[in-house]
């Protein structure tokens, strides 16, 4: 067990691509940290540098306080689980799990004991004599985990370990990975491009894009207080709605209507370089059927009417897609998000996704009267995507006048 520190770590590939730019990250002992981001953002590269499979171009990597930049992978005492599982096809399940111990010259009896223990934890005991070719995907995945845990390494690195499994199995294994990590309490760095996995598994989540860290924080903080448009759009499913908005004296002109400007938003927008054109972001759950809103709440929000495109009833609540006329929000961050549809399921631009109570009687085709919580809106600068309404890490909503 050990902490891992990345100090201005950069990776430049021989062909000139800089895959990771001066990343600073401190991973505490026993922490479960997730690297998440769209394809090609440098997650695997970062992980491989921690593993020692890729050289570090500049910066320093410390494991348990010791600089390990120049140490070979085998001397770092770290175990890794690969997306492809990377099981040795010529060895049985038991031999696969025993391999690292054998290389460490552990006595045979001890190896057998450790393998048996790990097999029991992972429910692999009856498959110990099988070859990987004769296992199901989930079983192979567990063997890969088993090979990592038998060694009791300083840290686990996992590169999309669940993405080759089908959806149901993935959810099961997610719980198992989480439980295992809690049990062993070993520092774990886990790479995924699935934001649901990131939100549910990690103590902390690192959102990456194009080789830069966008934001680091616990899942709830990322969800509530995204630093920029990219994080806002990437975290959450269905993702945040984005609308173009124009700041005018005391109001915010949007395709939904003119919203009143609260004091704090006015202050946020008062800087000399504050933009007139902004992007308004609001999550689906911050809407409600106007008829279900109590009087004292009504004042905190804003009501509007829009045609209903589609209603999806989930039982516990309803996803209602509203049609919004007018322009679309435009920003580089949003284009990046749209390009990476796998990471964030952005709503079609013409639709506003809202999550209303199950009691709502909104119907397809009809117009709906919808209330929106102004405390929860975010305003983003379309030029660089940063969150204008974030003060000392807290989102300050637009207060109702």
């Amino acid at each position: 067990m050990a902490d891992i520190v990345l100090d201005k770590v950069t990776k430049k590939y021989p062909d000139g691509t800089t895959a990771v730019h001066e990343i600073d990250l401190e991973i505490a002992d026993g922490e479960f940290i997730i690297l998440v981001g769209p394809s090609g953002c440098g997650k695997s590269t970062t992980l491989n540098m921690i593993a020692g499979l890729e050289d570090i171009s500049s910066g320093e990597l410390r494991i348990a306080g010791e600089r390990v930049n120049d140490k070979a992978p085998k001397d770092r005492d770290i175990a890794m689980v690969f997306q492809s599982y990377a099981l040795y096809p010529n060895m049985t399940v038991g031999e696969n799990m025993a391999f690292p111990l054998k290389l460490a010259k552990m006595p045979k009896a001890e190896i057998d004991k450790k393998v048996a223990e790990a097999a029991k934890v992972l429910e692999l005991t009856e498959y110990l004599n099988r070859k990987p070719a004769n296992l199901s995907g989930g079983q192979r995945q567990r063997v890969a985990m088993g090979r990592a845990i038998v060694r009791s390494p300083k840290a686990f690195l996992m590169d999309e370990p669940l993405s080759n499994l089908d959806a149901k199995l993935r959810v099961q294994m997610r719980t198992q990975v989480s439980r295992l990590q809690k049990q062993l309490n070993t520092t774990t760095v886990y790479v995924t491009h699935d934001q649901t996995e990131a939100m549910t598994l990690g103590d902390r989540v690192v959102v990456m894009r194009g080789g830069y860290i966008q934001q680091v924080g616990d899942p709830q903080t990322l969800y509530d207080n995204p630093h920029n448009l990219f994080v806002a759009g990437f975290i959450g499913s269905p993702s945040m709605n984005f609308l173009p908005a124009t700041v005018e004296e005391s109001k915010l002109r949007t395709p939904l209507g003119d919203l009143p400007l609260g004091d704090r938003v006015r202050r946020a927008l008062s800087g000399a370089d504050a933009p007139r054109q902004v992007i308004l972001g609001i999550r689906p759950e911050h809407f409600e059927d106007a008829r279900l809103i109590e009087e004292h709440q009504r004042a905190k929000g804003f009501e509007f009417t829009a045609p209903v495109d589609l209603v999806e009833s989930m039982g516990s609540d309803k996803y209602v897609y509203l049609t919004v006329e007018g322009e679309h929000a435009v920003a580089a961050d949003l284009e990046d998000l749209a390009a990476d549809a796998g990471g964030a399921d952005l709503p079609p631009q013409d639709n506003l996704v809202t999550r209303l109570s199950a009691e709502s009687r909104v119907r397809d085709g009809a117009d709906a009267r919808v209330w929106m919580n102004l405390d929860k809106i975010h305003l983003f600068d379309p030029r660089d995507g940063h969150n204008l309404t974030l003060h000392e890490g807290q989102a300050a909503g637009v207060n109702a006048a």
Partner: protein
Amino acid sequence: MTVVSRQKAASPEAAVPSRRAGLSEGKKQERRLGWLLCAPAALVMVAVTAYPILYSIWLSLQRYDLKFPENREFIGLANYATVLTNNYWWTAFGVTMLITVISVAVELVLGMGLALIMHRTIIGRGLVRTSALIPYGIVTVVAAFSWRYAWTPGTGYLANLFSPEGAPLTERASALAIIIFAEIWKTTPFMALLLMAGLALVPDDLLKAASMDGASWWQRFTKVMLPVMKPAILVALLFRTLDAFRIFDNIYVLSAGANETSSVSMIAYNNLMKGLNLGIGSTMSVLIFLTVAIIAFIFVKLFGTAAPGSDDVDGRR
């Protein structure tokens, strides 16, 4: 093929019986289609190879010397008895085996090294690969002549360098060494090419996993790469062994079979073409054919357990 599928069906996780029947129905049709698709090629093969083979077997059962054609007579297996009790034959057989074993073994090691280099180089990959393949691209006879001149006393640079006194191509041991050397020089690139295809079969992740598990370079090579490459290695060995066993042109040019350096192909040729003894020559050809068939059979038996996907029939389980 059949062995594999039978074993699969017998393993516990096989499909339920009703589905198994459906599967084998499809399999049967697939197999029938396979035969149909192979049929034209198989027919041509039979026409082109079966006739000469059968004819030489027929010849091998006769006393038939073109110098005394009137003595032609069916004598059963007498030719085989003659050849198999003859010292020349067994000397040639020993020489051929020696050349085969040594050259294939050395080629395997060198070829593996070359394959690893070609697989790993990033800069100038094309150049490295092309230059490595040059020996294989040169016509064997041409290469053999250049070796012969190089080893000719007085004029050859290698002869002057290594044995200014003697004539290496006229002494048995040194002549064999030169023949083996020429053979290795010539076909190592081919071996490397086949092995490189095998290297491509080893997933990068597997090697990364092995280094994470604490394997040194050598351990990764022996414990991960070689087992995964085993089928490719066996194919390469089979091709090269069969090839090497039929060695002819290098010997023909370099020593002409003098000083007991003849291979079995050489003495078969000498009997057939120079001695015009069709009976004995054909007998030798048939014996070479049988040896090659036995070698191939042994390798194919080995393959059975090494082919990918046949882990379940692996005897060690």
